[in-house]
């Protein structure tokens, strides 16, 4: 996480044309891997800050400047996936965004389950003390269903 929010932007603005074309390749690979790993869970507003963090990453910066593919290769899916994961997890706002999306989705699924029950059924479950467990298991079951 950069201490100064303009750091990544300054780094990107100082690229030469060769570095810029390399950065475009890295950027595309990063966005693809981000979509594969997190789907729509990272808020759209975090895209630019994450790209700035990506440009500041020492391994990525080294590739951009030298064109050396030993550490980072935009063609290599596994390396890009690892780097994407590290960059996203190092940014606390991106992590917060993912947690928030998960929480919002969880709440939506819980509402969906509670609304699907008949009122008498709901009261019966509540009296048994099993309503919370049933809701939790429904949410756990459905939470990742859209990513499969």
């Amino acid at each position, binding site marked *: 996480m950069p*201490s*100064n929010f303009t*750091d990544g932007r*300054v*780094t990107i603005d*100082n690229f030469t044309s060769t570095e810029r074309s390399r950065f475009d390749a890295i950027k595309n690979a990063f966005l693809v891997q981000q979509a594969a790993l997190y789907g729509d869970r990272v808020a759209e507003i975090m895209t630019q800050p994450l790209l700035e963090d990506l*440009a*500041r990453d*020492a*391994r990525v*910066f*080294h590739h951009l*400047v*030298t064109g*050396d593919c*030993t*550490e980072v290769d935009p063609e290599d899916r596994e390396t890009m996936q690892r780097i994407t994961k590290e960059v996203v997890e190092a940014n606390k706002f991106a992590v917060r965004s993912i947690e928030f999306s998960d929480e919002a989705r969880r709440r939506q699924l819980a509402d969906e389950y509670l609304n699907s029950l008949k009122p008498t059924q709901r009261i019966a479950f509540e009296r048994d003390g099993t309503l919370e467990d049933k809701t939790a298991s429904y949410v756990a079951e459905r939470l990742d269903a859209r990513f499969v």
Partner: protein
Amino acid sequence: MDHTISARDIRKICGLGDYASRPILSDPALKPIKRSGPKGGNGLRFYRLADLLRILRRCDFFTQAMQDALCALDIQRRNGTHA
């Protein structure tokens, strides 16, 4: 450990003296970290390559060969293949 390049490396690679390197290394955008050896003492300042290149590229004396040397040093230090 992204801070890999010390002031001594910069002086050596760019062929600068103490006096000539001072305005470059005192740039507030560099944000160095200070790292001491096993016996403590007054540590060395280490700089990030990304911060350093942005300052050095503005200098007339800075060449492609110097940039390559700094990049090589950076990758070696990060992967622990340099003393």
